[in-house]
């Protein structure tokens, strides 16, 4: 069964030069969709979608973990504090992934976290400070 899952990968200085995306495609038949990448003195990280057979994704995970890469599934990498959200809509137009949708019956702003690409644009648009993201 083909699924798409969102992961955060953390690299150390020992493994950050491994051609991981190439291997994901070539060996595991996975379509990686990289949303964020960073490199720093202690290694780096990737935030990406992996699309493929569930068993292939599991095998790919085992391969990456074998290299010492920390693999963390991201279900909710950006979180909305519902007690702070006032459903204004300031986030709606600044989100490139269109993850915020105004329900035109209730006028509530719905957050579709599966569409979120972790760009952090909403964090500085949200004045009640309802949007929170702790990734790295």
């Amino acid at each position, binding site marked *: 069964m083909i699924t798409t899952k969102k992961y955060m990968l953390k690299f150390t200085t020992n493994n950050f030069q491994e051609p991981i995306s190439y291997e994901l495609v070539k060996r595991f038949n996975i379509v990686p969709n990289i949303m964020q990448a960073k490199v720093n003195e202690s290694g780096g990280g990737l935030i990406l979608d992996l699309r493929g057979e569930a068993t292939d994704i599991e095998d790919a995970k085992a391969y990456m973990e074998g290299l010492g890469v920390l693999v963390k599934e991201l279900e909710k990498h950006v979180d909305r504090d519902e007690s702070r959200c*006032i459903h204004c809509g*300031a986030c*709606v*137009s600044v989100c490139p992934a269109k993850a915020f949708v*105004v329900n035109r019956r209730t*006028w509530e702003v719905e957050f579709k976290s599966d569409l979120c690409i972790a760009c952090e644009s909403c964090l500085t648009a949200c004045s009640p400070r309802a949007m929170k993201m702790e990734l790295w």
Partner: protein
Amino acid sequence: MFTAEEVLDLVEDKGIDAAFEEVDVVTTGTFGAMCSSGAFLNFGHSEPPIRMAEIHLNDVQAYGGLAAVDTYIGATQASRSRPTEYGGAHVIEDLVAGKPIHLEASSPGSDCYPRKEIDTYVSLETVNEAYIYNPRNSYQNYAAASNSSDKTLFTYMGKLLPKNRNITFSSAGQLSPLLNDPHCRTIGVGTHIFLGGGEGYVAWQGTQFNTSPAEKNGVPTGSARNLALIGDMRGMSTEYLRALNIHNYSISLAVGVGIPIPILDKEMMRACSIRDEDIVAPVLDYSVGSSRRPVLAHISYEQFRSGTVELEGKSVRTSSLSSYKKARDIALELKKWIEDKEFLLTEPVRSMPVSSKPKPLQISTKEELE
């Protein structure tokens, strides 16, 4: 009893004349950032007493130029230690939430007020009077914002993406109090209102009260009238009084305001049947750092609220900065209060100005003004 939204279907079905026979009161609501807000507090006297000259509440400076233990805390005042995180609006929200607030005050000391320093905790329960007094709230319409420059701007109209890639707007439109009584026929000094989840009154005309913007469909097409509001903090709720951190701009306070409008005659019925499609606001270019910003377009709230509008031939996404959901909640809540006979309407004791236009601040010498 209808909200300003519910009444629209009735007017559409039956027309103004028949609706007028059926409707006694229309309730309105708005919930958005209102920077010109704050609260008066009286702490009571300590033993020995102090005339507080320098006052901080949770590290946010409050005004020390009133009598010994009176103060005013302004919503946008930033705290000393966490200026971008916490400010006067947070103190107000925390007070309303019933949280303890750290009070530090100092004084030179005098014969009648010998104490020079005090460091204690207060709460909404321990203080004497605690009332919101907001000099400028509940704007009648407000200009929308866009940004034609190459970089993202952070303004009091929110985050504006480069090259006019978004537009922000801030009005409850067809639910907004002053858009349903555009010439203040029923709203005046003394009007009993919903304020911050509790009860309040219209205290005065708001600062920069402006009757001059051009009208379309009977309502102003730009930032026009507004109200000074007063109300007891006791009874208010953090649901309708919420601290905001407007990124790279300032702390602010989102205030919930609801005003009942008595349908005195058919003209009031017509005024309260205003729809988002009839209310227009200018889109100003905030990349121009001047108080005279160019107008890029005039767009209706129906279009703003649809999520995308056409600007200079391009499809542009929009964001509301005020909460239409909360505005609706407020109008419904106020309607319920009136239906349950918990809230009585008042007749104003003084009318709002018929003609008023704010003056700009000129840079003048002393001699020029003598």
